[in-house]
């Protein structure tokens, strides 16, 4: 009965409520900072009733529901919170907890940070943790295929080979003169050198941001080619923690180039000799062939290549109180090469302390050091990045050439510096080493006066000193010249003579230093008044740099096998180079941000830069940029609409700005006089002379780049799906172009240097998607893809103005095209249109019947030749018949994406990063299409596909006769489908459950297995790794390592 009564009352109440309204009010503030939040949305769950907090963080919302209701509070950067109000509750003060969701991430954007949700530019960020488990000598290597618009180019698989990054598709116009496509590197607010970035260990880094568009205008001075911003780890409040991570791995090649066997190559030589009616002395006899077949030698590659090891150890210590926090960390990296004595060693030490001196003043001081040393066997004139002599000798020496006969290295004259054998060279004691050390101080004071709310004054000072030293010892050595054997003299007997290789007979040392400082003063004033939030930053900054580098050598050893100067002829002492340099730069910067209720965002950046590289009247450049953004998902109409059920956040942003570059050989505006490299005699007196350098360019100034970017950021489906689309355009003008080889009329008389002339534009779309979800409690997985294609958004570029002279116009060859006003044809090289192999006599007769005077490069066609299209219809095939073989769209893949997949189940997690290209064309080129050498006394073997070459007995061969004209020229014959897929790295790790860790009193323990380049799942070439340019490239290296991470 009582229940019925109650029910009745409720009915009455609810009926009454229908007519009544209920006003709920309250304040929303952040839990941690206890600050009121302006613009937070408050919705009554299940209705479209919503409001937002005012400038004081207060809200009021009306409802007619007098019963129990649920308020949903949302604010960017904070966890959504639901609060249940019982009937009659009218006041709800709510505290929001900051989230770790991506949208609330703080992104480093240069001279400060911003919330990702408020970001107005095309900025990619990577957490160093994502790449920390990948063992790499240069940090950049680990960033491959992880972010849209970031290019990573590694010179070779050699440990420590040069790695270059490009950010946002830089446009350069070729030539020397100091022009670079490198981005600007900034580490903890200070401009750094590329080597500093290369040497950083991921374990000591928090995040890396890439500014790809006019956001880089904040670094207007050199932001033209993008900016890489690194934030290193800082101390965190709490009990001191010590963390150790160690990795140990082994490395070897992913794939050995597949070459013709000795017998195949010998038969190849004989086939050629038969077709050319060559003398018997140029052929292998049957006895020789039998000998080769019955005495198979190992490839030199197999004999000299061995797996190597990689190890890496990092140790860090962090902790602090509310007044002082500290961080100290170090890393050691060592990687060996796969032949000879190649190795690279790196040390990296970073330490920092942040101290709150008073409530208003915070001081930060950081001391960092890095050290990098590499060494190899140093054959003089060998490319240190690619070890071109050794690799070529290892791969292309035919297997009938033994590496040793009776234990003595066999000398050859191809593939190297004259007569040599790599083993003889390794044993000579020659070496070349290079080391670099950097010591960096980074310190700042920050003052936030409590009496002026929102004001921050900061002074930051950084000083870095670099020293480099190198030592090369090129010792002469002997190699054994064995007597020729066999009918054609290509085999070897057992008698030998010693033959000397000078290898420069030299000891060389170089020393250099580079000192610079950077001083930054800034005032920042940030306030929120009602719904208006603004932030004005004023910065001025100056930097100076001075450097020198001296290189000395002596030749002609007087005491053999002694790699010291004293052992060499003092009279040969030569100062090869001394390169002192100094530079200075000053900048003034203003940045103003404004947003209204977190919905409408605006930013203005203005930067005035002066560079000593340019003449006084051309020194200053002004680089403004504006950006606007609209967070649609914060609008009431959006929140109220059904869309909000699917779309969590949606932002449209646009920016346009001007950036510049001053990175070019300095002082090109001035006349330069250097000692004349020669002397004159007058009477009995030897007099010195002076000569002048390049033509001074008094007008040299900033290169300019105008960028536009329209972007959409969205998160959907409960923040599981994240989309970022950027449509970007770039227009570079006053582009640096080194015209020393294009030049002015010869009558000017002096070689010219760099001018500001060229212009070009480019456009494209960055589209990246990621999906992050869990299945049940234990399964968590994510997929992210970058550089996905959108059907309507092809990117390309256009050269608008290019410096050329009449010389170029009159003597164009197929590789020098004047492209002014035309779409770029990158990837569509000039070449012949191949029409197929002339396989049968009937085909040959047909060709000659149609045109009896038909020739290919002056040679009358023969059976087995590759035939080509006579594009200029002159009745013969010559270099003039080369043409653009494919259209841009034919060579452009329809998918060219980097991907990252991650999954975890309870304590086990797995991640993999790779690349997938579908469609397009790639070319077999370089050494691979050069006909295996058939005439030389030291033959060069070719890839295995050459075994299937045309002979009268094998008319349906896939490949033509190698001795035909233009077989090795670029032609459509050598174009193949460009689909490629490979994994860059994969990691699987196991973290000890907390329960066990607690028992063992270890805060955390993790073990892992990581692999670099583990798998190439689509290889368009079936004889080599697709990431090498040809068979003689240093192989791609696969490293498998195990790792252990302990935090105490």
């Amino acid at each position: 009965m009582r229940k019925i009564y109650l029910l009745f009352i409720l009915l009455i109440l609810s009926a009454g409520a229908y007519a009544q309204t209920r006003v709920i009010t309250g304040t929303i503030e952040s839990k941690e900072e206890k600050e009121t939040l302006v613009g937070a949305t408050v919705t009554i769950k299940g209705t479209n009733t919503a409001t937002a907090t005012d400038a004081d963080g207060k809200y009021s919302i009306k409802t007619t529901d007098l019963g129990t209701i649920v308020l949903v509070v949302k604010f960017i950067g904070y966890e959504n919170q639901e609060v249940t109000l019982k009937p009659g509750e009218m006041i709800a003060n709510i505290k929001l907890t900051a989230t770790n969701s991506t949208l609330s991430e703080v992104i480093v954007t240069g001279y400060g940070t911003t919330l990702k949700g408020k970001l107005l530019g095309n900025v990619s960020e990577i957490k160093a943790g994502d790449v920390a488990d990948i063992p790499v000598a240069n940090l950049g290597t680990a960033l491959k295929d992880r972010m849209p618009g970031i290019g990573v180019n590694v010179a070779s698989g050699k440990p420590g080979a040069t790695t270059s990054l490009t950010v946002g598709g830089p446009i350069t116009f070729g030539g020397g003169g100091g022009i670079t496509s490198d981005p600007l590197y900034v580490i903890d607010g200070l401009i750094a050198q590329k080597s500093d970035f290369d040497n950083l260990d991921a374990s000591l880094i928090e995040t890396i941001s890439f500014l790809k568009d006019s956001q880089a205008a904040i670094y207007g001075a050199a932001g033209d080619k993008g900016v890489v911003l690194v934030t290193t780890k800082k101390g965190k409040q709490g009990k001191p923690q010590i963390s150790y991570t160690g990795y140990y791995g082994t490395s070897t090649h992913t794939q050995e180039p597949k070459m013709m066997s000795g017998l195949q190559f010998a038969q190849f030589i004989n086939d050629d000799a038969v077709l050319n009616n060559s003398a018997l002395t140029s052929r292998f006899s049957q006895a020789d062939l039998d000998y080769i077949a019955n005495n198979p030698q190992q490839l030199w590659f197999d004999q000299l290549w061995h797996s190597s090891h990689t190890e890496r150890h990092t140790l860090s210590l962090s902790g602090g109180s509310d007044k002082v926090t500290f961080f100290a960390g170090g890393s050691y990296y060592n990687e060996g090469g796969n032949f000879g004595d190649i190795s690279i060693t790196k040390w990296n030490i970073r330490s920092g302390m942040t101290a709150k001196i008073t409530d208003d003043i915070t001081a930060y001081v950081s001391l960092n050091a890095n050290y990098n040393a590499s060494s190899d066997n140093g054959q003089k004139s060998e490319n240190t990045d690619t070890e071109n002599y050794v690799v070529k000798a290892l791969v292309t020496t035919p297997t009938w050439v033994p590496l040793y006969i009776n234990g003595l290295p066999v000398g050859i004259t191809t593939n190297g510096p004259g007569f040599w054998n790599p083993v003889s060279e390794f044993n000579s004691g020659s070496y070349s080493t290079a080391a670099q050390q950097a010591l960096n101080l980074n310190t700042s004071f920050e003052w936030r006066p409590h009496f002026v709310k929102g004001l921050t004054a900061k002074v930051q000072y950084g000083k870095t000193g670099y020293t480099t030293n190198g030592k090369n010892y090129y010792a002469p050595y002997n190699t054994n010249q064995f007597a020729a054997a066999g009918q054609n003299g290509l085999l070897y007997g057992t008698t030998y003579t010693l033959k000397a290789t000078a290898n420069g007979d030299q000891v060389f040392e170089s020393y250099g230093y580079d000192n610079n400082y950077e001083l930054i003063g800034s005032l920042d004033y940030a306030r929120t008044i009602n719904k208006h939030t603004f932030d004005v930053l004023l910065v001025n900054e100056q930097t100076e740099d001075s450097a020198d580098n001296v290189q000395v050598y002596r030749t002609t050893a007087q005491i053999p096998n002694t790699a010291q100067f004293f052992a060499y002829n003092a009279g040969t002492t030569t100062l090869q180079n001394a390169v002192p340099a100094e530079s200075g730069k000053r900048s003034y910067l203003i940045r103003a941000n404004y947003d209204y209720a977190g919905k409408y965002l605006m930013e203005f950046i203005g930067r005035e830069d002066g560079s000593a590289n340019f003449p006084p009247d051309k020194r200053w450049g002004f680089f403004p940029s504006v950006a606007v953004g609209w967070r649609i998902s914060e609008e009431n109409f959006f929140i109220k609409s059904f869309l909000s059920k699917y779309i969590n956040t949606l932002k449209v942003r646009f920016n346009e700005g001007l950036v510049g570059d001053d990175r070019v050989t300095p002082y090109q505006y001035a006349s330069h006089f250097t000692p004349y490299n020669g002397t004159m005699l007058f009477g009995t007196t030897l007099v010195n002379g002076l000569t002048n350098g390049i033509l001074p360019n008094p007008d040299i100034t900033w290169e300019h780049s105008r960028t536009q970017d329209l972007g959409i950021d969205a998160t959907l489906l409960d923040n599981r799906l994240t989309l970022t689309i950027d449509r970007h355009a770039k227009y570079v003008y006053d582009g640096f172009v080194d015209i020393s080889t294009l030049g002015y009329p010869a009558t000017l008389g002096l070689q010219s240097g760099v001018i500001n002339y060229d212009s070009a534009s480019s456009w494209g779309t960055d589209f990246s998607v990621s999906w992050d979800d869990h299945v049940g409690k234990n399964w968590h997985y994510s997929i992210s893809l970058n550089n996905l294609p959108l059907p309507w958004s092809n990117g390309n570029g256009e050269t608008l103005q290019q410096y050329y002279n009449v010389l170029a116009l009159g003597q164009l060859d197929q590789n020098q095209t004047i492209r002014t006003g035309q779409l770029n044809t990158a990837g569509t090289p000039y070449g012949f249109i191949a029409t197929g192999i002339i396989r049968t006599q009937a085909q040959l007769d047909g060709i000659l019947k149609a045109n009896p005077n038909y020739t290919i490069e002056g040679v009358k066609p023969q059976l087995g030749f590759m035939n080509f299209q006579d594009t200029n219809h002159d009745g013969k095939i010559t270099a003039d018949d080369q043409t653009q073989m494919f259209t841009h769209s034919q060579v452009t893949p329809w998918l060219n994406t980097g991907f990252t997949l991650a999954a975890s189940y309870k304590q086990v997690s797995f991640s993999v990063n790779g690349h997938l290209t579908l469609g397009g064309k790639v070319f077999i080129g370089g050494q691979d299409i050069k006909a295996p050498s058939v005439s030389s006394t030291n033959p060069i073997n070719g890839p295995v596909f050459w075994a299937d070459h045309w002979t009268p007995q094998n008319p349906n061969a896939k490949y033509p006769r190698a001795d035909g004209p233009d077989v090795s020229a670029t032609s459509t014959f050598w174009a193949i489908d460009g689909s490629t897929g490979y994994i860059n790295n994969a990691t699987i790790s196991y973290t000890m459950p907390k329960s066990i860790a607690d028992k063992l009193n270890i805060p955390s323990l993790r073990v892992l297995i990581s692999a670099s380049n583990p798998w190439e799942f689509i290889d368009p070439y079936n004889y080599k790794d697709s990431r090498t340019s040809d068979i003689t490239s240093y192989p791609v290296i696969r490293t498998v390592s195990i790792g252990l991470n302990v935090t105490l």
Partner: protein
Amino acid sequence: MKTLTKNAGKLLIATALLIGAAGCKKDIFDKQDLSAVDGDIWNTATTTNQFLNGTYDQVMPNWPTPGSIYNTSDELNNGTASILYGTLTGNGNEVTEIYTKTALGTDQYFNIYRCNLAIAGINAGTMAAADKATLKGQFYFLRAFTYFQMVKLYGGVPLVLTAQNPATDNVQVPRAKSSVCFAQIAADCDSAAAMLPATWPATTDGGRITRAAALAFKGKALLYWASPQFNPQNDLTRWTAAYNANKAAYNQAVTDGFALYPTFANIWTDETTNNKERMIWRTLDATSISPTHGTNNENITRPYSETTGGGGSNEPTWNLVKAFPMANGLPPFLSDGVTVNPASGYNPEFFWQNRDPRFAATIAYNGCIWNLSGKTDRHEWTYQGFLDDAKTPSVTGFYCRKITNPALSAAAAIQNTNTGGGSGMDWIEMRFAEVILNYAESSFYATGSLTECETFIAKLRARAGISSANNYGLAGVTAAQMPGILLTEREVEFAMENKRNDDLRRTRQFDKLTGTQRQAYRWTLNSPYVAGAIPTPPAAGKTYIDVPDASGIRICDTINVNNKTSYEKFFTTAIVSLEPATTPSLNIPVSYYFYPLPNNFIATSAFIQQTIGWPGGTFDPLQ
């Protein structure tokens, strides 16, 4: 604590502002290129002089390469086939004096730029007027010299007289008329002469240009402009200008102490101040001052046996040998070059006897005494198969004695490009003798009178040692004969001095060589005399004359070539052609008076025309 806050805060604000204030200071940009001297070299004589020294080294000729394209003629064995047999391709890729584009500083316009830059720089600089004058004068001369080297080959070239700045100047400069170029060369020489001293201190500045040298060079340039190469219509005013210029140059040179060196044979070896004949030269040295400033010319010119693996080059042809007059000044042959001049006393068998003493100073022939490498009574043998020189025998039968230094040892003759050595003999680009002959020639053509012309030729003949009887052999010479006499006098006086090619082109006699041959004189041993090593076993009945007998005497050294009986017992002689069977005679087209500009030079500007007579040529070098 509060005070600290306040003060530290103030400090920070102050620092932040200070950085801004510091920005107004200029010094952060007060940087310079530490790897080079900046443009401020024109205010001190030392640095400007250094720039000048570098320019001298670029501009001043060194020893010519025998037979190079600019040193190919009928006087020596070496020669460039494309010139001798008329096979220049027409794209100018052979005649690259003006432009090779190999590197900075290899092209003539780089030298022009240097001169232009220096002249402007000195004008704007703050040096004392006297320093300015001497420095600038030399640059004017070097500019004139450089333009002349181009114009004599190509005709008018683009005339650039300022160090151009592409930002403000029109750098597209078409070819200037030849007349304009010559006028500028003359004007530059005048400017130079007005500023240059009469002499330079010999030890520190010997080899720099003097005022007389500048005027002499002007006379030479105007002589070219008046000569048939540029003046086929024989415009007399040009001859008058040349005459006046050479007269002035001669007078100035005499005033300033220049004179003919008394001993013709020693002009090249006496490098002391006693030698007043040298007007423009490059100093070389291979020993005391700088071992790296020598020449290898000695090594290539001497017979193989007196060198270190050298020899074979710079061999005089029979054509040159024939040209020398007799000691009485009369030519040995009549104008057909074949018939012996009966009045001359020439003996075809002993052609070396009774010749102009310059003959013996210039030509080494079979059997002459030539004390090379300090060896007294050393016989020179050029007969076929002579053992000592068998590896690189003389192809013409002659060697050049003139520009050699017999005192040098065989080992010292060679120059190594790295370590130096070789001969330190200076290269004389212009001798006072040339002023005299330029004077003589322009006097003859300008005035039509023989008197003054002959007086000046006589000066050289007197110095040479020709008998003064019959006015040094010039008595009775007609005006019609004089051009030939003048050309031959130059051929003889300047034999092997890299002047013949220029003179043949200048006088339009080069194409007249078409159909002729360069000739050699061949001595062959008569049986039973045999040259060379003794074979094992020796052939019966042969006498090996090149090998010393038990007493150390070679039979060849006992031959008296001036004794008819002895001479004829050993030798049979013949005159043979030097031209190969494939190109049996010379062929020099008329178009070679103006060589084509290199295609890659023309291609650097749309405004530079090719010369008429060559593919696509529209530029008339005769204007």
